[in-house]
């Protein structure tokens, strides 16, 4: 058609281009398929092997001696996780929410930026480092491993999650809402307490759930601070056991009954963490719909 023979040369989409496009589509679908695999494989295997460990004894007894390990349980780990994570939550939730409130409602100055910066750093810190730091300070000072040290290590990891996520949620609350309330003559702190927080309610809950999921699953920081134990204890000043620690320990024992316990504990952890994550997601999408 034209002198340079243009259209003829470029007129048909060549087989090569098609082949590349098809290969690419295959690649994309493969990625999609591959993405399904890990979760499915992990859940199936963990629950499959851990299921048999779940008995009343498992939840209520302490580890039995080497003669009949299967007769015992890991009650102290369940209790310990509850206490350590519970304490960490008690520290990090109020602290995190208060920080978030400060950052979103008052914070545009240097102090706020420093706080944000610190939160950033802590968020990117490998958890072992947080644990080692707390250990280097607290464990040395107290001359003992302790549940308290463990929960402080977890707080260090959980606080930034709550602070940042909650700050984001609070920022999403429309400014008009605040201004409307302030214009009515309601003092600032009341506006925050009675208007902003309730509106952001579900979102805050989501952040807490995410932080909890994290706290439950962390092993390294409590390994070097709370150490773990074979005995039921409620003393925060002494070493305490926790589910992840128990898994870490039993996983490497050559005793099959103990390995099964490890799978059982893993099953429970997995369940807890998955439930929290999915619930957080559902809440988050509902919150989004409320705010938009």
């Amino acid at each position: 058609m034209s002198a340079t023979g243009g259209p003829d040369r470029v007129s048909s989409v060549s087989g090569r281009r098609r082949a590349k496009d098809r290969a690419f589509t295959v690649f994309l679908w493969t990625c999609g398929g591959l993405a399904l695999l890990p979760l499915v494989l992990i859940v199936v295997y963990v629950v499959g092997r851990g299921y048999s460990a779940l008995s009343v004894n498992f939840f209520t007894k302490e580890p039995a001696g080497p003669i009949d390990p299967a007769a015992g349980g890991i009650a102290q780990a369940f209790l310990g996780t509850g206490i350590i994570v519970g304490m960490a939550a008690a520290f990090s939730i109020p602290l995190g929410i208060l920080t978030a409130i400060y950052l979103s409602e008052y914070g545009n100055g240097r102090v706020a930026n420093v706080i944000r910066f610190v939160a950033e750093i802590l968020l990117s810190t490998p958890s072992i480092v947080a644990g080692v730091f707390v250990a280097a300070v607290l464990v040395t000072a107290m001359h003992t491993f302790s549940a308290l040290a463990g929960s402080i290590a977890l707080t260090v990891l959980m606080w930034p999650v709550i602070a940042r996520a909650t700050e984001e949620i609070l920022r999403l609350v429309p400014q008009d809402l605040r201004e409307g309330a302030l214009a009515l003559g309601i003092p600032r702190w009341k506006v925050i307490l009675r208007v902003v927080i309730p509106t952001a309610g579900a979102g805050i809950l989501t952040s807490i759930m995410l932080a909890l999921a994290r706290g439950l699953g962390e092993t390294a920081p409590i390994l070097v601070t709370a150490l773990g134990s074979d005995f039921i204890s409620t003393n925060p000043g002494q070493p305490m056991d926790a589910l992840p620690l128990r898994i870490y320990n039993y996983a490497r024992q050559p005793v099959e009954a103990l390995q099964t316990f490890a799978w059982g504990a893993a099953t429970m952890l997995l369940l807890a963490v998955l439930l929290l994550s999915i619930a957080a997601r559902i809440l988050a999408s509902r919150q989004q719909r409320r705010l938009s």
Partner: protein
Amino acid sequence: MLGGQGEPAFRRFGLGFLIGRNWDPVHESFGALPYVFGTLVTAAIAIVLAVPIAVGLAIFLNDTHGWFTHPLAIFVDVLAAIPSVVYGLWGLYVLGPVLQNHVEPFLTDTIGRVPLLGRLFQGTPTGGDLFTAGVVLAIMILPIVTAVSREVIAVVPRDLREAAKALGATRYETIRMAVLPYARSGLVGATMLGLGRALGETIAVSMVVGGGRSIGFGLFNAGSTIPSVIASQFLNAQNIGFHRSALLALAVVLVSIALVLAAASRLLVRRTAKLVQAPTAESVAEGPALRISG
């Protein structure tokens, strides 16, 4: 906080300093090199395996529409919530044996024979090896690299895709020509985030890496990483001053690298977001920070 963190290490480091600079390097390079090596190698394997799939997934989720895209996205995101110790347990008893008894021997016999490249695919795993650790790490960083890549790709303006399509580009060509170049810095940022996570991962790695001290080409040898050695030795290093300080020093090194990576990645993701200059740019840059948790 950073100061407080470094203080114990530097206080003790200072003691070593007194005895002389020669002591320290000797101590360090004798002790630390296998761990540095292991850290880098496992992280490299994780990146090589996870990033292509993560980016492919990100493109897939952005480009394909169907009932399955949302659930699939959730599947991948939930992977990030699984505790590291569960990954370790699974890796130790499920993935590890499969890799060590089937995949690795196969690879040793096939690619292992190829002249240069083959040297990588050699080694004897004893209770774990660098390759297995790399694979487990890859699965662990997949969610975060995918999530950030998705955000970065979603931000590419529709205009550009349309321009490519109107020129008669196939789907592959559209993505190559209009989407990827635009999202490039953001994708690098996503990779860095994944890298940061891989470098810091402790428990899962320590359970499957074998605890050896390999330095050398064979990926199928047992090895160690900085986090894994800190975790396994810290409790025993309580009373030996220099051992502990060395471990703490390693911890400081680890944190610094993680921080630099995190900062760099935020910058890069922001750069992609800036090309758009949309109000969503802020959230694109902030999002990744929250996903590192878990």
